[in-house]
């Protein structure tokens, strides 16, 4: 018991760290959000979300983030499943191949998509070479969504893959022995048992997609204004830190609400990474 008390002191530096670098900054942003630039109390920075421009960018962000998350889930689940069933000795290596792109600068990778998607770009050259009609999607919502799917896909693959690895294979065999076909096994056993991974993946994609401003800057070309872009502009161009903080608080509340909805869906309480 004495031992236990003494070891828990190892967390003291971190407890202090949490107070200063996690909790205190939140009070600061809240402080800015509920004051005017002169320092008197106001709620106008928070209610500013009702402004049609802000509201439509929030709505657009939600739509883009939602579509991005769904596409990531649809693309990632088979990948995780295939990886899991792969009969090779060194799966860790293959899994790492999904993280490796992050070692090429994120900004450059998105820029490369600009080059691929532009009207005279690589994609259209390939399309016209094989006789298909060309596409003009750069600087549209579609391009922004594609960029986000690209950027966040690994965050969906890895948690699902980890969840699948934890499933005891004999459970699946048992289902097959009891006469379940592939589809029944998949929907009744595999998916429910990987639910934690799916939920982590959804959160890890939805939250950054909701608040991203770089992808929409590069692939939306200023035409796609997400809530992240609005907040960024308040801090860098408009220099209205109070309004920027107010909108950030709204964004935060929004993330927390979607998170608690997700948590409601996830009734198991095993405190893994995220949720």
């Amino acid at each position, binding site marked *: 018991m004495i*031992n*236990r008390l003494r*070891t*828990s*002191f*190892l*967390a003291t530096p*971190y407890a202090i*760290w*949490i107070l200063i*670098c*996690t909790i*205190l*900054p*939140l009070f*600061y*942003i809240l*402080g800015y959000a509920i004051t005017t630039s002169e320092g008197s109390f106001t709620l106008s920075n928070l209610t500013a979300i009702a402004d049609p421009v802000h509201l439509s960018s929030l709505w657009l962000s939600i739509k883009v983030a939602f579509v991005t998350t769904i596409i990531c889930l649809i*693309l990632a689940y088979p*990948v995780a499943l*295939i990886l899991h*069933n792969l009969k090779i*000795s*060194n799966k860790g*290596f293959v899994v790492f191949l999904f*993280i*490796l*792109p*992050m*070692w*090429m*600068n994120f*900004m*450059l*990778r998105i*820029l*490369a*998509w600009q*080059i691929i998607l532009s009207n*005279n*770009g690589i994609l259209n050259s390939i399309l016209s070479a094989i006789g298909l009609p060309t596409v003009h999607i750069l600087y549209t919502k579609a391009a922004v969504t594609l960029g986000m799917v690209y950027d966040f*896909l*690994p965050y969906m693959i890895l948690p699902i893959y980890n969840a699948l690895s934890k499933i005891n294979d004999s459970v699946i065999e048992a289902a097959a022995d009891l006469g379940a076909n592939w589809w029944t096994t998949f929907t009744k056993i595999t998916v429910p048992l990987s639910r934690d991974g799916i939920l982590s993946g959804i959160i890890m994609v939805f*939250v*950054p997609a909701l608040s991203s*401003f*770089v992808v929409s*800057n590069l692939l939306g070309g200023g035409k796609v204004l997400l809530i*992240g872009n609005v*907040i*960024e502009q308040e*801090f860098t161009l408009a220099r209205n830190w109070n309004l*920027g*903080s107010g909108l*950030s608080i709204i*964004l*935060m509340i929004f*993330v927390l609400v979607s*998170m608690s909805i997700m948590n409601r869906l996830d009734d198991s309480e095993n405190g893994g*990474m995220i949720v």
Partner: protein
Amino acid sequence: MKKVKNTASYLYLGLIFLFLYAPILVLIVLSFNDSMSRTIWGGFTFKWYANLTANDSIMDALGTTIRITLASSILATALGTSAAIGIHYMKKRHAAIMLGATNIPLLNADIVTGISLMLLFTRFTPLGEFSVVLAHIAFSVPYVIFNVLPRLQSLSEACFEAAMDLGATPWYAFYKVVWPEIFPGVLSGFLMALTMSLDDFTITYFTKGAGVNTLSTMLYTQLRKGIQPELYALSTILFLLAFVMLLATNFKGNSKKEVADK
């Protein structure tokens, strides 16, 4: 039937890899392009690689990036590992509070984390490399903690106690019994912190202050006037380094495994 399914699986994996690696291929090709334009192929050249070290602003940003990444990931690993051990031995209720707070940077949008830290830092310290390091520690510590904690949880308490009963000092017992078990978690936490820090833009952008540039923020300011082609060369080198390191650890892991199998 099974063969068809296998082929389809590999084809699908291949397509996903193509999707993930296509932009990287484009950038590697651009690093050999003898033209300032991003869209015109001007012939093959090594000159961007040759010019690289002579480009002071890029070398400066590279140095800043390496300093920030190493400092923040090493400090985050130390802070996070000791925190994980402390949390593991805490009362359940206290541990739950600590873990709840640990989740905040993970759940918060990067832009909100970056802005809130900037608002705090501007009060107490001039923004610069130091504030960026603090901010990077703030968002990478949770990854370390959540990588180390599961290792501690699967550790049998009895081993540590047995070591103590056999006369080991707590430190010696920790070093011989606990550390080897949690080390893989510490290492993967460190690598995640390293990768996250290296790839971060948003939080750096808000906390860096004027005059300090990492590779990411430098690229962002260059987007409008055009990217210096040397940056493609540098990124290609960094990417290939990471790839070679991955291959090397993979082969090392393999040979170890073979020995173990024998």
